[in-house]
């Protein structure tokens, strides 16, 4: 009861905050940042179902998102954007038929076509279903393969899906490298994404804490044991892939609406990589973690732009040497905390030496044009993400949350897995023969 009230209160507060934000002047960048957090969180949560809960490393998520994105874009594309002039490579058939209005009219649901929002609901569901269908197909190899081989197969599928829209035969449906422009942006707004995000959150947390969620986690922990305990591996794996792909497709549709366009570069392998960083950072298997990780990683991506601004080279040189010295300090700290000896290893001294050396060199040649020139670090944010992921894998594989979820109980409630004093005494009595001469005879307590 208390938990429900708290949840409700949080929801109301969040809604109010979002309302306030949309009303505020000049909050545009914050609004779009939050919108992106919601969209990518949906994708991250869905990827987390396969990678975290089912324990299968799937690298083809960008493919699912792409299918959802393209289908939504095509179905929602307004009449004036459909002209052969705008969509040169699209076939006439696709131009005429891949149109939600037309289908709604044909089914006698023309009144729905009046509302863009209603149409988006339908389009997103269709996008999700199409992605789910493909997810089902991609999931089938998981019945035969395991581990890194399976990861490569999902990667292969994702790349095939990504490469196909450019091929001339497929371009009739995707407009090839030109992409689709002029997608209505209604579903890419804060309210829309917030709503879909809440549905996703609700859906996945319900799923996780159900018998099905437990079956997924059983498969992750030990496939052979799970099968021996009656869990149908084929069904559950394909189910998880389909559900995950469905929500990825929806996220792709939302993203297409947010960008108001899609092309072949919108959903490349970096999308999956980005999501992978997010869920690894948050903690594989944790929905809370997926959201948290996405938020942090997006923060770097959106507000890390200053890293790539042009600045004098000496700033960069100092930064690099500073980072090297920091890395040294960090490794010493880690080794101390883990009681490893020697605390300072020779290879770490290389870091320190290079860092200090670089700093001294920069100071020594400070006035030379090389050090004074303007430099710009394109792609610094991606590099940062890559380094972050490597560091997570090395130092904290469980991420921020591990596998646990946020819950009110976690904040306020008693912990059930820690024995009370009474339970501890009873336990000692059960197992200690000095206290209980009957211990180990088998019938203790139960009879």
């Amino acid at each position, binding site marked *: 009861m208390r938990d429900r009230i708290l949840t409700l209160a949080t929801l109301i507060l969040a809604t109010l905050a979002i309302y306030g934000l949309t009303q505020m002047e000049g909050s545009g960048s914050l609004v779009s940042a939050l919108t992106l957090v919601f969209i990518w969180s949906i994708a991250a949560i869905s990827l987390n179902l396969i990678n975290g809960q089912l324990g299968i490393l799937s690298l083809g998520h960008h493919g699912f998102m792409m299918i959802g994105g393209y289908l939504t874009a095509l179905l929602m594309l307004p009449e004036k954007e459909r002209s052969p002039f705008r969509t040169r490579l699209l076939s006439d058939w696709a131009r005429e038929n891949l149109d939600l209005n037309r289908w709604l009219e044909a089914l006698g649901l023309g009144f729905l076509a009046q509302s863009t929002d209603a149409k988006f609901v339908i389009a997103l569901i269709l996008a999700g279903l199409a992605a789910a269908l493909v997810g089902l197909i991609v999931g089938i190899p998981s019945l035969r393969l395991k581990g890194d081989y399976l990861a490569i197969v999902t990667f292969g599928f994702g790349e095939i899906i990504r490469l196909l829209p450019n091929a001339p035969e497929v371009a009739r449906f995707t407009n090839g490298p030109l992409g689709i422009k002029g997608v209505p942006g209604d579903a890419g707004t804060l309210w829309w994404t917030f709503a879909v995000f809440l549905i996703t959150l609700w*859906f996945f947390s*319900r*799923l996780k804490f*159900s*018998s*099905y*969620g*437990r*079956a997924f*986690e*059983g498969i992750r*922990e*030990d496939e*052979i*044991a*799970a*099968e*021996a*305990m*009656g*869990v*149908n*591996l084929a069904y559950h794996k394909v*189910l998880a892939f389909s559900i995950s792909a469905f929500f990825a497709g929806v996220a792709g549709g939302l993203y297409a609406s947010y960008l108001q366009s899609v092309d072949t570069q919108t959903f490349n392998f970096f999308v999956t990589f980005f999501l992978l960083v997010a869920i690894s950072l948050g903690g594989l298997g944790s929905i809370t973690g997926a959201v948290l990780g996405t938020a942090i990683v997006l923060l770097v991506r959106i507000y890390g732009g200053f890293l790539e601004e042009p600045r004098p080279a000496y700033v960069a040189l100092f930064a690099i040497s500073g980072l090297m010295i920091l890395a040294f300090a960090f490794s010493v700290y880690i080794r101390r905390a883990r009681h490893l000896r020697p605390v300072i290893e020779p290879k770490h001294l290389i870091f320190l030496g290079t860092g200090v050396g670089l700093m001294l060199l920069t100071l020594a040649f400070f006035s030379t044009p090389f050090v004074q020139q303007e430099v710009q670090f394109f792609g610094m944010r991606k590099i940062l993400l890559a380094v972050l992921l490597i560091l997570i894998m090395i130092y904290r594989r469980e991420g921020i949350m591990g*596998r646990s979820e946020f819950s009110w109980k976690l904040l306020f409630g008693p912990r*059930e*897995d*820690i*024995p*009370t004093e009474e*339970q501890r005494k*009873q*336990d000692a009595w*059960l*197992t200690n*023969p000095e206290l209980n001469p009957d*211990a*180990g*005879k*088998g*019938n*203790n*307590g*139960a009879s």
Partner: protein
Amino acid sequence: MALLELRNVYKAFGGLQAINGVNLKVEEGEIVSIIGPNGAGKSTLFNLITGVYRPDRGEIYFQGRRIDGLRPDQVCRLGIARTFQNLRLFNNLTVLENVLIPQHHRLGLHWIHAVLRTPAYRRREEEMRATALEKLAFFGPRLMTFRLHQPVRVLSYANRRRTEMARAMATGAKLLLLDEPSAGMNPRETQEITQIIRRFRDEGGYTVVLVEHKMNLVGEISDRVVVLDYGEKIAEGDYREVIQNPRVIEAYLGRKEG
């Protein structure tokens, strides 16, 4: 009709004939021990029954239904559950979750029910929880209170063995296949396991087939003992008869020279 019946089962791995024409009948309510030297094919036999392997030749029947060629989960559904020689628990999940997962196949509800938490689903969830607690209660209160919510990996070895047995029981099986249930346990714990196995039959109504190396355990509880050597059944019968059998002695100790 026998509960479990193996008819002339063969299984080879490459050139190695792991199981060589084994016939076996297990009647309802029996406790049957399978013994034999290392590499005699005992675990392979379990893997054949539970569907991990498919026999090259021969048939396996359970309650008169042919089960060879079925997948492990289908075999489990029909009522055969097993434990593993070196523990295969869901290590990062709690004891309760470990005992709930084997009941999943009896849920009988579409996943939509689970997400929507329909009344039918809630009822089943309650029932599953009750069953889980009931099965854990077999082992006394030690797994029932705070340990219920502890991940299995923090438990002691003996408690993990107990959890694995509870997990097998929770599948709703009639027949339990226990692969060395007392491995790695001290004499007191072995003693307790012996009692537990007996109670499986007497109180739980299970039929038990076990692979075991500790002869005093085997002698104490077995209704029947089957001896395997090089994939063949070399003896079968009462424990006391079987250990007098010269072929069995030879299999364990080797032939006397001269």
